[in-house]
């Protein structure tokens, strides 16, 4: 299903999606963030500061509540996410690519009910990048493309005064059907233009990982390289790179106790971060990843080696957030290149 939407009618399409809560990028506090659409939706964003992963993997997820009255058995009540249907507009291809990667993690061996409950209620309407929105983009290096449709339900392409709208999944078709006559049939000239726009987007120069295919083996061979410590020397050990990443998924689980007598509280899952020094702290006080070099290696190898070994794809989607937002210039592209170029 390939259609054309007059740019001025995007709000009418969004208004027609009455079964869905619609989110789109909004500029707030100087950053682009996915927000519920109120009024006119803007799709002139570069990319959002945070990826849309929060929708399926929120920073705080309540698993269940617990209560124990003395002399009685403990009472546990599972709390599943609300089944609100969300559709997100303006998702860039790199973030779309993040979706199947998160699916692997949370559904491949064990199905995570909290994730799947949210996931089946989210649809992604992508917006192809006519040119990379940031100088730190590198999607082409990791098997992606500025016009990739991976993980998306619908892909929109900006053709000046109109959008070329293409259904990728059945959900996508349903979203487009809801638009009714707002979507016109795409003419041969539109098809031709979209092909050209996509070809130009792919030809636009990006930063490059030199040997992404060789990276898993080369990183494996470089586990003890002194380069890790050297390249992580400036790392401050904050959580920016992983919290902004569309595929980082590590979490912690804690019991948040609201009252001691009677004992009452909630078990919650929160984002965790391999760059925090206490991430791998053992109960004994021993820390197997005791310095920033070991922690940088973990982040890079997880993206480019371990995930690849487990699922046959790089976990990194080339969005460049960890590169552009690192306060001290730690640059995953430079790190992978430098470490791998030292291996034969």
């Amino acid at each position: 299903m390939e259609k054309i939407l007059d740019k001025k009618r995007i709000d009418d399409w969004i208004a027609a999606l009455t079964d869905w809560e619609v989110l789109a990028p909004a500029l707030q506090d100087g950053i682009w963030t996915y927000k519920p659409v109120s009024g006119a939706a803007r799709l002139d964003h570069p990319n959002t500061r945070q990826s849309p992963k929060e929708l399926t993997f929120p920073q705080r997820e309540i698993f269940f509540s617990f209560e124990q009255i003395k002399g009685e058995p403990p009472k546990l009540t599972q709390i599943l996410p609300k089944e609100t249907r969300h559709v997100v507009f303006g998702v860039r291809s790199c973030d779309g690519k993040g979706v199947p990667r998160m699916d692997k993690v949370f559904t491949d061996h064990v199905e995570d009910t909290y994730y799947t409950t949210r996931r089946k209620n989210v649809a992604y309407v992508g917006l192809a990048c006519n040119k990379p929105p940031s100088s730190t983009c590198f999607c082409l290096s990791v098997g992606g493309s500025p016009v990739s449709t991976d993980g998306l339900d619908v892909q929109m392409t900006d053709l000046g005064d109109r959008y070329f709208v293409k259904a990728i999944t059945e959900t996508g078709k349903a979203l487009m059907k809801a638009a009714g006559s707002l979507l016109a049939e795409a003419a041969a000239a539109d098809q031709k233009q979209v092909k050209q726009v996509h070809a130009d987007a792919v030809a636009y120069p990006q930063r490059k990982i030199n040997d992404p295919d060789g990276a898993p083996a080369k990183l494996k061979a470089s586990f003890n390289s002194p380069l890790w410590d050297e390249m992580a020397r400036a790392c401050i050990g904050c959580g920016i790179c992983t919290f902004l990443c569309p595929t980082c998924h590590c979490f912690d689980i804690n019991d948040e106790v609201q009252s001691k007598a009677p004992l009452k509280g909630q078990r919650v899952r929160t984002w965790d971060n391999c760059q925090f020094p206490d991430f791998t702290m053992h109960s004994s006080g021993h820390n197997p990843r005791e310095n920033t070099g070991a922690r940088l290696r973990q982040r890079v190898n997880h993206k480019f080696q371990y995930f690849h070994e487990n699922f046959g794809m790089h976990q990194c989607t080339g969005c460049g957030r960890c590169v552009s937002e690192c306060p001290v210039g730690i640059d995953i592209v430079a790190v992978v290149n430098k470490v791998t170029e030292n291996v034969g």
Partner: protein
Amino acid sequence: MINIKDIRDTARDMLAKGEVRTVIGYRRGSRGMPAEPAFITSPEQADELIWDPTCYHNLSLYLVHDRKISAHLQKNSGLPIAIVAKGCDARSIVVLMQEHYFKREDVYIIGVSCEGTGVLDERKLASHLNGVQPTLAAFDGDDYVFTTAEGEKRLPAREVMADRCLECRIPFPKEHNLVFGDDKTGRQLAEPFAALTKFEEQGNSERWDIWSHHFDRCMRCFACRSVCPMCYCDECVVDSITFPVTQQTSAAEKADRVRWIERSAMRSENITYLMTRAMHLAGRCTDCGECDRACPVNIPIRMLNNKMEREAREKFGYEPGASIGGPSLVASFLDNDPGDFIR
């Protein structure tokens, strides 16, 4: 005007003579315009050093890292470290020495005067460049000059300078072994605490609304804490383990540990985190603004620290980082203190 050759020559010379083991400075980053911290250990690397409006970082953080690493390895660090320091950075080093974090002779301060042109605020710059991404920034008199794909772009520094630099009272590293650039103290471009004063013109409920909004947005990535040279505590109230764990620590002690702040990033916990940090910086924050710059969601964290800094200044005439031998704010009292409890 600072000539980068002077800094490079100094670094090369000191390393060649074996006077220092590392020179911490700035070098060109791999991702484009912004500089990044550089750790120069051989004379040949000295030419990597740069000085431009993107040298934001307060490098004294790495003196703290170094001290922690030597303590962990139980190794004497030996030769001193040389460090490139702006006015605010040098004041941070002074505070760390006041607190006996390291000794004066452990550090060789290569001071650089900001000469009143401070450093860039990339957020301000973005609003001037309409999506064009600069690849290089340079000082030129009272201007910054940016190299972009669409040619050179010149902007008066004061239009895109970080607020903390506009408000800086002493853009000169008084404590130094060697200093480059002229002392332009007094050439202040905005009133001290100008941004804070403007904010406080609003009523209580507006201020509460604004800060509640920010507290709700905090992701607790702890970049503000991690980038701060004053946040050097080995145990922090926000961490999962808030006390040193050794082989002697019992299972019960670990299980019954007090958790001051839950990991959930929610208003109550975020307020506790950000306010605890602000309180712990009273009389210690030298307004390097790194917390503000590092925040990935643009929470104006500097304002919290500014509030404490202004209290210290107005109530006690206290200026953090003024002198190594001077008293620290929270570890000293005045004989004529109006409060009885202190005596």
